[in-house]
C-alpha cells in the first residue's frame, strides 16, 4: 500500500520529463503525426540537428555555462568571508549587518525588477552578460546564513590558537576556516550553479540578442513561432539539453544538493 502510493507519485512526478525525453528522440514528423510510442521505434538525433542548425543553441549552452559559473563564483566570494566574519569576528553593528543581509531572503525575487531594469539600462548593461550576472549575485541571504552556521560549528579555540601563531584574519579565513567547511561550500556551489543555470525571467528581460541568450531563455524562442509548423521535437531536444546539466549535477552531488536544500550544515 505504501509502495503503491509512492510508485504512483514517483511516476506522475517523472512523467513530464520522460515524455520530454521520448519526444526529443522522436523525429518531428512522427511527433506531429500522433503516432504515440512510449519510446521511439528508431531513436534519432534529428531534432538535435534541427535545433543546432536553426538556432544558436551552442552559443546558448556556452552562455548558460559562463553565467552560471560566474554567478556561483561571485556569490561564494562574497558569502564565504561574510559568513566567517559573522561567525568568528567581533565588531560593532555585527547583528544589524547580518540581519540586513539575511532579511533579503524574504524578498520576492522580482519585486525590484522595474528600478533594476532601469538601472541596468542606464549603466549600459542592457543585453550584456554582466547585466544578468551582477544583480543575480545579490541574492546571498541564504548563503551568508548557511556559511555563518557552518563556521560556527568550528571551535573558537581553533582560531585562538591561530592568533597565538600571529595569524591575521585573512590567514585565519583562508588557511584554517575554509579548509574545514569544504562540504558546506560544495553544497552552496552546487545549488548556486543550479539556480543560476535556471535564471529565467531576469535573463529574458536583459538579454535581447538571440546569440546572447541562455538555454533557459532561448527555449522560449521556440514557443513563440506561430507561423511555422510546430517544432515540438527540436524544442524538447533543447529542453532536455537544458535539463541535463542540473540532472547530472544532482546525480553526482546528490548529498550536497540535499544538504543545501534542507539547510543541514557540514554534511
Amino acid at each position, binding site marked *: 500500500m505504501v509502495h503503491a502510493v509512492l510508485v504512483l507519485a*514517483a511516476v506522475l512526478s517523472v512523467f513530464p520529463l520522460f515524455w520530454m525525453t521520448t519526444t526529443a528522440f522522436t523525429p518531428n514528423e512522427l511527433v506531429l503525426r*500522433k503516432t504515440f510510442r512510449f519510446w521511439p521505434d528508431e531513436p534519432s538525433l534529428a531534432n538535435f540537428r534541427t535545433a543546432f542548425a536553426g538556432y544558436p543553441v551552442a552559443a546558448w549552452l556556452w552562455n548558460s555555462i559562463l553565467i552560471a559559473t560566474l554567478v556561483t563564483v561571485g556569490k561564494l566570494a562574497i558569502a564565504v568571508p561574510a559568513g566567517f566574519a559573522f561567525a568568528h569576528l567581533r565588531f560593532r553593528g555585527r547583528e544589524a549587518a547580518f540581519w540586513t543581509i539575511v532579511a533579503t531572503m524574504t524578498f*520576492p525575487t522580482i519585486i525590484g525588477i522595474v528600478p533594476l531594469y532601469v538601472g541596468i539600462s542606464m549603466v549600459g548593461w542592457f543585453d550584456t552578460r554582466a547585466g544578468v550576472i551582477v544583480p543575480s*549575485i545579490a541574492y546571498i541571504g541564504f548563503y551568508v546564513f548557511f556559511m555563518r552556521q557552518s563556521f560556527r560549528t568550528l571551535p573558537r579555540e581553533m582560531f585562538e590558537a591561530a592568533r597565538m601563531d600571529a595569524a591575521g*584574519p585573512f590567514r585565519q579565513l583562508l588557511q584554517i576556516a575554509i579548509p574545514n567547511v569544504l562540504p558546506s561550500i560544495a553544497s552552496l556551489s552546487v545549488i548556486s550553479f543550479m539556480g543560476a543555470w535556471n535564471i529565467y525571467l531576469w535573463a529574458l528581460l536583459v538579454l535581447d540578442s538571440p546569440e546572447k541568450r541562455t538555454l533557459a531563455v532561448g527555449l522560449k524562442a521556440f514557443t513563440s513561432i506561430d507561423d511555422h509548423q510546430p517544432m515540438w521535437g527540436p524544442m524538447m531536444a533543447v529542453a532536455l539539453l537544458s535539463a541535463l546539466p542540473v540532472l547530472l549535477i*544532482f546525480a553526482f552531488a546528490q548529498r550536497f544538493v540535499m544538504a543545501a536544500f534542507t539547510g543541514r550544515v557540514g554534511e
Partner: protein
Amino acid sequence: MTRKFAFALAPWIFTGPALLFAVVFLYLPVVFSVGLSVTDWNFIRPEANFVGLENYRRIFADPNFRDALINTLIYCVVLIPAQILVPLGLAVLLIRVRQGTVANGYKIALFLPTILAYSTAGIAWLWLFDPLNGFFNTALGWVGLPPQRWHTDPDLALWCVTIVAFWKNFGLNMLLFLAALVSIPKPILEAAALDGARPFWRFLTIELPLISPTFFFVAVTTTMGVLDDIVGAIDVLTGGGPYGQSSNILHYMYQRGLQFFQFGQASAAAVLIILLILAVTWLQFRMFEHRVHYES
C-alpha cells in the same frame, strides 16, 4: 600595529561586499519603487511629476488588477495547503520504507522537478497540454473523453498553472519534512509505540509537534513561493492569459512595468505586494510562533 589594524578592518572587508550587493540590488530597488509609485515617470518622458496616489487609484480601477488579486487568493488557498499536506504525507510514507536503493529512488524521482528551470518545466508541460498533438488530449481520447484546450482555455489556465507550480515545488517540502522526521530520536517513537497509540494519533500527538519548527518554516517559505515562484510558471505557460485569467499580482506588476512600461503603476503594485507580504509574514509569526516547539 598592522595586525591590530587588520583585525579592525577585516570585518568590513569581509562583510562589506555582501552588504553592498544587498543594499544596491535588493534594498535600493524597493526604495525606488516606493518613489516611482507616486510619479508619472517612464522611459518615454524624461521628466517626473509627483502625482500622489493616482497610480494606486488607477490599478485599483483596473479590472486586470482585480483579477490578479482574486487569482493570487485562489493560488494561495489551493496551493499552500496542497504544497504542505501532500509533501508531509509523502514524507511520512517515505520514512516507513526501509532505507536503501528503492527508498532513494523514490526520493530522487519525487525531487527531480524541483531542480529544473521554470522554462524547462513549463515547456515540458506545454507539450503535454498541447491541444493538437499533446499527450493529455490523446489520453482523453483513449478513454472516450472530449479534448480540452488546457492552458489556452480561460477557465482552465489557472488550474494548469496550479498543477505545474505544485509539481515543481512539492519535492523540496517533502525533503524538508523527511529530514525533520528522520531526526526524531528513535526512543521517543518506540516509547509511543509501546503505549499502544494508533499510528495516526501517534503522528498527530508526537511526530507533528516535534517537527513543528520545520512545519513553520515550510509554511512561511511556501507562502512566499506561491506569490513569487509561480511567476515563472505563469510566464512560460500562459503569459498571464487568456484575458488575464491566470495572472497573479507579481506577474501583473511585471507586465505593467516591463511589457507596458507603466513604471508608476507597476511600482504602486510592487509597494502593495510588499505591504501584503509584511502583513502575511507578521500574521504567520503571530499565529504559529508560540505553538512551535523548539528543542532547548
